[in-house]
């Protein structure tokens, strides 16, 4: 039977879009590498390499958002908080290790060699002086170790998502109420981080993250291309991971939960467990994205974690087309690049005589109009355009042939 052979075909053959995406990503990475200052002809400035690297990280968190929202139907307004937590986790090590070096350099001139406590106190004073403190808070306990902080990149967002998700899903919170709850979590986290005694330098955030400890002699041009490669690799691996997850049987269950949760439940699947799995996995990937993003941005502060960032994330995915991974990538890449072009003064002002449109102010309006337009007229988003190219648009018969109409038909369904 022909249908029995289907599952044995290779993964890439069954999902050509994955192959296309990886090829496009590889080509893009190669192109940027060749054009960059450090490894190529220097047509692309270091700051633009960083912008592109950051864009890739945003694409990574966007595909995570797409899996949780577009595939599983959970409109989470908290995934940028997980992204930020990943950034904070790596930022703590970067800041500690870099400050440690500065302090040690200063202390080499002293007559008596400094003790361990003295060094620690000096680092603490350097880092926390800005918020009027000198002692290390408990949450910095692992900040001296890169390995442990890398573990935190995964564990902190993962555990928060696990605990939060467990409480929310077990209580059967769903739909818009869940969105509000995740937004509340994000807001609470941002408000907490804004406090000076949060232990993470309040609204100053963590800064100087672009300087890699021990690699001061390496120019930023080189560092930027390293991070760009890292981001591209992470996006590629993340894409493969999610494509594998959503294509298999678990993908079938996850999409089923999106479309008819009760039915999945009556099939014997523990819906809460699946939601928790998706929520936590995507939170971890978001954390990894953040850990790659903020060293390229150089600074992380609580404003990054504010609820509006998570709403942007949903907007990117909606514009790009939810329910397809490459749609999320397109949405995130396009909107984030456009956003930095408009807000960075790249777009020329439009002089209307009586009023001058300054895009720094009007970009958000434009984005809002774009979002409404996409939602109303192109519910499949930009990614939906690929349907026109790839295969004919399937006839939608959902809701047709209801009980009454079906019974009135003179003939049976299609001949068997």
């Amino acid at each position, binding site marked *: 039977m022909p249908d029995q052979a289907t599952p044995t075909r290779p993964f890439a053959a069954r999902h050509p879009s994955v192959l296309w995406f990886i090829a496009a990503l590889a080509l893009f990475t190669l192109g940027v590498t060749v054009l960059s200052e450090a490894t190529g002809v220097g047509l692309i400035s270091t700051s633009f390499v960083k912008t592109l690297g950051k864009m890739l990280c945003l694409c990574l968190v966007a595909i995570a958002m797409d899996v949780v929202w577009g595939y599983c139907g959970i409109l989470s307004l908290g995934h940028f908080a997980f992204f930020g937590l990943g950034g904070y986790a790596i930022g703590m090590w970067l800041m500690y290790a870099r400050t440690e070096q500065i302090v040690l350099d200063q202390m080499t001139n002293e007559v008596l060699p400094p003790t361990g406590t003295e060094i620690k106190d000096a680092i603490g004073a350097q880092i926390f002086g800005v918020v009027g403190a000198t002692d290390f808070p408990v949450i910095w306990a692992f900040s001296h170790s890169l390995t442990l902080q890398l573990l935190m990149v995964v564990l902190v967002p993962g555990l928060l998502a696990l605990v939060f998700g467990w409480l929310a899903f077990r209580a059967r919170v769903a739909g818009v109420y869940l969105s509000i709850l995740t937004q509340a979590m994000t807001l609470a986290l941002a408000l907490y981080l804004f406090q000076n005694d949060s232990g993470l330098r309040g609204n100053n955030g963590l800064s100087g993250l672009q300087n890699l400890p021990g690699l001061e002699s390496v120019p930023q041009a080189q560092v930027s291309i390293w991070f760009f490669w890292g981001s591209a690799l992470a996006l590629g691996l993340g894409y493969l991971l999610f494509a594998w997850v959503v294509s298999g049987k678990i993908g079938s269950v996850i999409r089923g939960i999106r479309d008819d949760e009760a039915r999945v439940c009556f099939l014997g699947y523990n819906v809460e467990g699946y939601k928790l*799995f998706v929520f936590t996995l995507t939170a971890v990937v978001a954390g990894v994205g953040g850990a790659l993003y903020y060293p390229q941005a150089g600074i992380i502060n609580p404003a990054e974690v504010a609820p509006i960032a998570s709403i942007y994330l949903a907007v990117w995915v909606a514009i790009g087309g939810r329910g397809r991974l490459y749609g999320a990538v397109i949405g995130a890449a396009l909107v984030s690049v456009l956003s930095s072009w408009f807000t960075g003064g790249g777009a020329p002002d439009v002089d209307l005589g009586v009023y001058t449109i300054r895009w720094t102010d009007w970009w958000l309006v434009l984005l809002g109009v774009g979002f409404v337009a996409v939602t109303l007229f192109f519910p499949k988003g930009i990614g939906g355009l690929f349907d026109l190219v790839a295969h004919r648009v399937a006839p939608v*018969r959902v809701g047709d042939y209801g009980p009454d109409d079906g019974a009135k038909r003179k003939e049976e369904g299609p001949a068997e």
Partner: protein
Amino acid sequence: MNTLLEVSGVSVSFDGFRAINNLSLQIAEPELRAVIGPNGAGKTTFMDIVTGKTRPDTGRVLWGEKSVSLLSMSESRIARAGIGRKFQKPTVFEAQTVRENLAMALRNPRGPFKVLFYREGSAAAGRIAALADEIGLSDALQRPAGELSHGQKQWLEIGMLLAQEPRLLLVDEPAAGMTLIERERTTELLQRAARTRAVIVVEHDMDFVRRLGCKVTVLHEGAVLAEGSLDHVTQNRDVIDVYLGR
């Protein structure tokens, strides 16, 4: 024949309205049973209680040889214990293919990690092919379920139920909106299923119930009004009063 499901003394009320009133019912395995009754008799609520969607205020619902109580189990746990439910409206996953629908329902481990690493073997593929054949959808396996006609969706849902290999099948108005030929096939399917398992069909179409030719339980105002063969219950004075009015 041994008792598979025992419902005894179950009552449930919504905002003071008694939807189920001291209901007692026993189903053997295998058995085909039709539950009929006028609108508001509590047929759907009865199914909701058995499948764990609604918790009764009082009473017991016992399951299987060990007589475990279903009342403390979650919906998905009850489904895994062997109770399958077909809803009144055909509820299949319209965005997914017929094959994916059947594969999802197939009796297999249901934990997220087991499903994540699940690979379909030839046994499962063969089972899907056999089921598709049984419900007459062999040629439609790769079509999205949303494209199917109403009757085909009903069969797909029945096929998904059979794929679960439940010991008890609860079927809510399977013949609604079906053509005559589709009804006949549905009757056949249900009768065949009932040879090896317990099947409860909730229906208020008397013709269809007659076609099933099985024991009938009449519900009225949340309690059992009469039980027996269709001819027996239709001659019952109370049933005539309820159904035909006085």
